[in-house]
Structures are given as structure tokens and as C-alpha cells.
């Protein structure tokens, strides 16, 4: 099985996609011998998260195919039930409800946008259904959610940010101006990077928070102080490309600081888009390198082939369709974490949901493998949060080239909660 995955043919790929569609369309078709395990999936199919949702669905389908080809979970076939949450915090908990109570999902997988996750988690807690989110927000480990919510597939944003500061201060400069969206995700960047930079002897000299309703940004750019050495930028939503383009226009051919951005500013956007030439030489955080690094791990090819992504991080069927590469692996890794948790707990049905959570909490070292194509991770059972390594890439010739990989210790911070002491 693994062998064909490592050397897939185009035909194999098409079949993988086809099988995925079939699974979704005909629930139970794989379940001839045993009742399938149902995984509900809250998906940003519409709304401002839709470009992420599309790739989350593709990646999850690919992982599902791999799991079923390998015998499913504890010998039972697996199916995923996708339901659109509209990227809307009101709809989020309704979808958790539907997936659990109406569709009979064993566990529910969560979505990207923090507000949807925070709104949905209470309902998952009430229903006592494991809710495994792929959001990277610092809301699981901060302790504001509950024992049923965990994030086993992607490092949270606090750790990502903290891990960037040593390299930024050593290589780019000490005086940083930050520009970020004026909501919680941006505030995490503001607070944690400012603190991490101070610990490195650097200084954040300006914090420019952009209202999330904004579609044009130039007027805020003069607030960047002239003595800025590094401009740290992060933006999300449909206006990201406008933001980056306007940044380029603003500096034009004049003197400019070093740019350091989170790839969120350009997720699903081609770095070679006209107007982005000024990014040449600038740096980005990436969780998972969009452009395949020369020294990529042994499972990278198999992962890309299974999901249908080429070496540049674009869809194999459309080179203009850029993946949300630094986020979507989380759905793949979460599915494999569910498999591991269910098999470790001897999960047989909804009555074992608590056992499943306890088995997840007992996990620690998660080594690199096809289950975790982004890299090795450590799961912290107390905070329900997984931690891994991060990458810094530089735009070279219009492509993102990895220049640094952080260590696990770079992103470490103290536990803020111990969920294992909380009641179910």
C-alpha cells in the first residue's frame, strides 16, 4: 500500500480523488464488512474562509483514502461527513449538533477560523463529543475551552510566533514595526511577538492594527516609523493580496525595511503574482513549505501526490490554484491522530468517547512519518495542544525557499491550563 503511495501515477491520483468523492456521496460503501466510523467535519465551504475550506476538504479526503486503504481504523472503514459552517460562529455549533446528533458522527473535526471554534466548543462539550480542531489559534492551550476540545494537528499561533523572534532579531533587525488585523488573531501576534522580541533584546516600535472591515490599506502605511528595521506583517481574509500589493506600491523603489510576514498574508496566493516583485528577498513564516525544499523529508512526495499538489504548492490540475499549504496538513495529521487515539483506546462506539479523549491526552511523542508530513510533533496532554517545528522561507526568484527551521524549544512556553483535571 505504502509503496504505491510513494510512487503514485496520475491515474492513481485520479482514482484517489474519485474514491473520495464516492465515499462522500455514498456513505457506507466501504462499510460492507463492519459499520464505518463516522467523522464529522465542520468545513468552511462558504464565507471568508472558503479558500481554506476547499483545501481542507481535499487534504482530508486524501488522508481518508490512505487510512481506508490501510485497513481503516481498528479494522473498521472510515467515512467523513462534511458540513458547511459558512465561516460563521452562529452556524458553527449548529453544525456540530447536526454532525453529532443527526448524522451520528463518532467525533467531530473542527475548522480554521477561531471564532467558529470558540463558538462551537461549548456545544461539543455539552454533547460530550470529541472536537478536534485545525485552527492554529491560541484558544485551546490558553484554557478557555473544555476537555472535549483538542488540537492535535497544528502548532498554535503563540508557539509559532515565539519561535520566530530569535531568528528575526539575529538576522533581520532589532527595531520592528508590526501591522496586523485588529482582531484576536492579530492581537496574538501583537502580544506574543512583542514579548518574544523583548526577550531577544529587540523592540517593537510600532503596532498598527487594521480594522477587519478594511479593503484598502495604503493610508495606514505612513504610520510605520522611518527607523523601522523590520516590518512584520500578517493579514487574513480575501483582501490579503491587496494589502501586500499596496505595501509594495507604498515603498516603491525607495528605501525599505526588511519584510517579515506570516504566510497567512499570501496563503492561496501565488508569490509570483505581478505587483509582488518587491517581496524578492523578503522572509515568511511557513509551517509547511509550499515549494518543496531540496532536503524535504522522505514522505513529502507521497503527501503531495495524495493531496494533488505539485512541487510548487499548486494543484496538479491547475497551476494557478495555490494550496493553503501551511495550514491544510493539519486536517491530514488530525485524522491520523484520531486513528491513533481510537486504536489506543479500543474505541468501539460513542460510549467510548471519554476513553478516546483520555487516550489522546496520554499521547506525547509523535514522530515524523506519512501520518505527520509536516514534521515530528509533541502532544501536550494537559493543554490539549500539539507542538512542532516551524520554517522561515525567503522569496528567491519569486519562489519561497526554506532558509531556516526552528527547533521545538524555540516555540516553547509555559502551560496555561491542565485540562486533565477538569470534569468531562
Amino acid at each position, binding site marked *: 500500500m505504502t509503496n504505491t503511495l510513494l510512487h503514485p501515477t496520475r491515474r492513481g491520483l485520479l482514482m484517489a480523488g474519485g474514491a473520495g468523492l464516492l465515499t462522500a456521496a455514498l456513505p457506507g460503501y466501504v462499510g460492507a464488512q463492519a459499520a464505518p466510523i463516522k467523522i464529522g467535519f465542520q468545513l468552511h*465551504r462558504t464565507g471568508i474562509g472558503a479558500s481554506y475550506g476547499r483545501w481542507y476538504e481535499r487534504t482530508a479526503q486524501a488522508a481518508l483514502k490512505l487510512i481506508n486503504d490501510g485497513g481503516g481504523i481498528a479494522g473498521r472503514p472510515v467515512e467523513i461527513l462534511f458540513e458547511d459552517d459558512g465561516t*460563521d460562529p452562529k452556524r458553527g455549533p449548529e453544525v456540530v449538533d447536526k454532525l453529532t*446528533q443527526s448524522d451520528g458522527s463518532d467525533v467531530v473535526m473542527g475548522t480554521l477560523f477561531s471564532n467558529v471554534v*470558540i463558538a462551537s466548543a*461549548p456545544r461539543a462539550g455539552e454533547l460530550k463529543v470529541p472536537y478536534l480542531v485545525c485552527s492554529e489559534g491560541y484558544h485551546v492551550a490558553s484554557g478557555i475551552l473544555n476537555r472535549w476540545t483538542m488540537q492535535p494537528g497544528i502548532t498554535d499561533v503563540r508557539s509559532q510566533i515565539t519561535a520566530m523572534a530569535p531568528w528575526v532579531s539575529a538576522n533581520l533587525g532589532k527595531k520592528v514595526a508590526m501591522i496586523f488585523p*485588529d482582531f484576536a*488573531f492579530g*492581537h496574538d501576534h501583537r502580544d506574543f511577538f512583542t514579548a518574544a522580541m523583548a526577550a531577544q533584546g529587540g523592540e517593537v516600535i510600532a503596532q498598527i492594527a487594521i480594522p477587519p*472591515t478594511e479593503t484598502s490599506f495604503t493610508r495606514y502605511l505612513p504610520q510605520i516609523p522611518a527607523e523601522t528595521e523590520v516590518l512584520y506583517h500578517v493579514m487574513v481574509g480575501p483582501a490579503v493580496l491587496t494589502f501586500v500589493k499596496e505595501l509594495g506600491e507604498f515603498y516603491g523603489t525607495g528605501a525599505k525595511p526588511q519584510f517579515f510576514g506570516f504566510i497567512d498574508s499570501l496563503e492561496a496566493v501565488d508569490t509570483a503574482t505581478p505587483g509582488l516583485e518587491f517581496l524578492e528577498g523578503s522572509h515568511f513564516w511557513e509551517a509547511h513549505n509550499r515549494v518543496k525544499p531540496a532536503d524535504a523529508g522522505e514522505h513529502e512526495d507521497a503527501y503531495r501526490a495524495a493531496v494533488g499538489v505539485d512541487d510548487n504548492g499548486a494543484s496538479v490540475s491547475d497551476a494557478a490554484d495555490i494550496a493553503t499549504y501551511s495550514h491544510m496538513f493539519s486536517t491530514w495529521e488530525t485524522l491520523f491522530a484520531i486513528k491513533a487515539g481510537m486504536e489506543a483506546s479500543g474505541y468501539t462506539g460513542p460510549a467510548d468517547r471519554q476513553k478516546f479523549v483520555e487516550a489522546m491526552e496520554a499521547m506525547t511523542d509523535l514522530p515524523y512519518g506519512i501520518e505527520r508530513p509536516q514534521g515530528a510533533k509533541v502532544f501536550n496532554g494537559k493543554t490539549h495542544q500539539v507542538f512542532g517545528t516551524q520554517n522561515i522561507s525567503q522569496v528567491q526568484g519569486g519562489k519561497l525557499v526554506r532558509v531556516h527551521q526552528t527547533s521545538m524549544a524555540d516555540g516553547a512556553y509555559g502551560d496555561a491550563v491542565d485540562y486533565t483535571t477538569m470534569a468531562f
Partner: protein
Amino acid sequence: MTGGGARIWALHAAVLVVVFAAQYWLSPYHATNLARIMVLAVFAMGYNLAFGYTGLLSLGHALLLAAGMYAASIPAQLWGWTAGPALIAGIAAGGLMAGAVGLLALRTAGVSFMIVTLMFAQAGFLTILYFAPVTGGDDGFALPAASRTILGFSLATDTPRFLAAFGLFASGLLASLALVRSSFGRTMVAMRENEERSRMLGYNPFTVKLAALVISGLYAGGAGAAWALLFGYAGASFASIQYSILPMLYVLLGGAGTVLGPFLGAVLMFYLIEFASDLTSAYLFIVGLALVILVLFAPKGILGTIRERWARWLP
């Protein structure tokens, strides 16, 4: 419309009995949905009092919903208030906010009123983001479980939640019915139909409209508070323009200026999305198409059209 008093009260009582009994024959999933719909219907009933009866086309009711939501959930979060006081705070905040908005916005009428309320609501939405340390901004926050209790019952469990939603809904519906059948209710309709004439009859349009808006705000505030307390979350997205348009859509779909219309519209819209999303992933197309077809057959909304054609006695 007079004379049918007994028939009217009987009809609404029957609706309440059916809705109450629904918790026994619906699956837990659909019963929870019904609890959600009842809270949304309270919001829409409030909107209906302003728009359907008094003719105030507001595009800013999300602000009133959010006022109630945060007035209930911030004390719950910071000072551990339980659901009873929090709900009262929410209702009051909705009314106060409506009064403040009304004092300024009611200087205008028609489309100008629509735009002023829209802009106040937009400013309110941004204000919630601006005070993110308290409001949680766009992320919002989950309410502490301890505050989601009333008389010792946890609102995070099915039966108390349903009963709480039903209690709010039933009192909202009956109050709404009593109001529109009162002389003040007829004055509200007079504002909608012919403001000039009612002025000559000695009414002060400004006070009547302000009172109607404040009552509408009490409903919206109650709905916002109830949403936070029953479903455990408060966030800025509930202050966005989408939540000003939703109650208008419920009201227009069910029938503007009908007491039961907002509830009917909320049920219809909720289950339209539910069924359409089971059919296809492109479900919004079906929803849109259904709205167009519905309005072609019932341009006054379902109950509005029924009233026009068959049941003129419907309040």
C-alpha cells in the same frame, strides 16, 4: 379586526401548545434547533414591531442584539452573574441602546433612517472590536458554565434550555399580540399608514416611534442575551450587518405586520438551509431560488398573503 378576540387568542394559544409539546416528539437534535429558532424568532418579533407595525425600516438591529448579548455575557464572564440577572441586564441594554439610537435616528425617516441605523450599527460593531480586551473582539468568548444556570438548572442541558427559550418566546409572542391589539398598537400602525394624519389626531409621532423602537430593542436585547446564555458564546459577528438583515428576512418571509409571521419566517429559513445543504454543497443557490419563488407566490410574506386572501382577522 375586532370581534375575533377569542378566535385570535385561541389560535396563538394553540400555536404555543404545539411548540411546547414539540419537545416531546421531536428528536433532541430538532428540539435544540427549535430552541434556537425560538430565540431568533424573539429577535424577529421585536424587529416586526418596529418595521412591520410601525413602519421603521431599520438596518441596525444587530446593534441591539449585540447590546443584549454583551450586557448579559460580560457580567457573567467578569463577575459570575447567573442567567436570571444577566438576561434582565440584556433586555434592559437592548431597550436603552434602542432609545439612544432612536433619539438621534428618529430625526430621519424612510431610507435615511435605514442608513443612519446601519451606520450606528457599523460603529457599534467596530467598537466591540476596539474594546477587544473586554469583549473578546472577533473571537468572542465562551461563557463560563457556572453562569449558565437559572434557578439551579443548567441551561447547557436540553430540557431547561428548551423551557427557557420557550418561556422567552411565549412571553414575547403574547406581549406582542397584546400590544398590537391595544390602542397603542393601533397608533403604531397609524404611524406606518399615515404619519401626518395621526399627528393631526393629536399623537406625537416622535414619541410613538421612539416607544415602538425601545420595545423592539427590549426584544432584541432579550434575544441576544438568551443566545449567549443558552448556547454559551458571545462574539462580534453577531453585531455585523448580516444580523440586521436576518430579522428583516424572517419578518418579510413570514409576513410583516403579522404576530406569528416572524416565527414562521425563522422556522422556514432555518430549515430551508438545513434541507438544501443536505441536497447539494451549492445549497445557497437553492436557498436563493426558494426565496425568489416564495416571494413570487406570497409577495406579502406567507401569513401576510394568507391574511390578504383568506383570513382577514389575523392580527
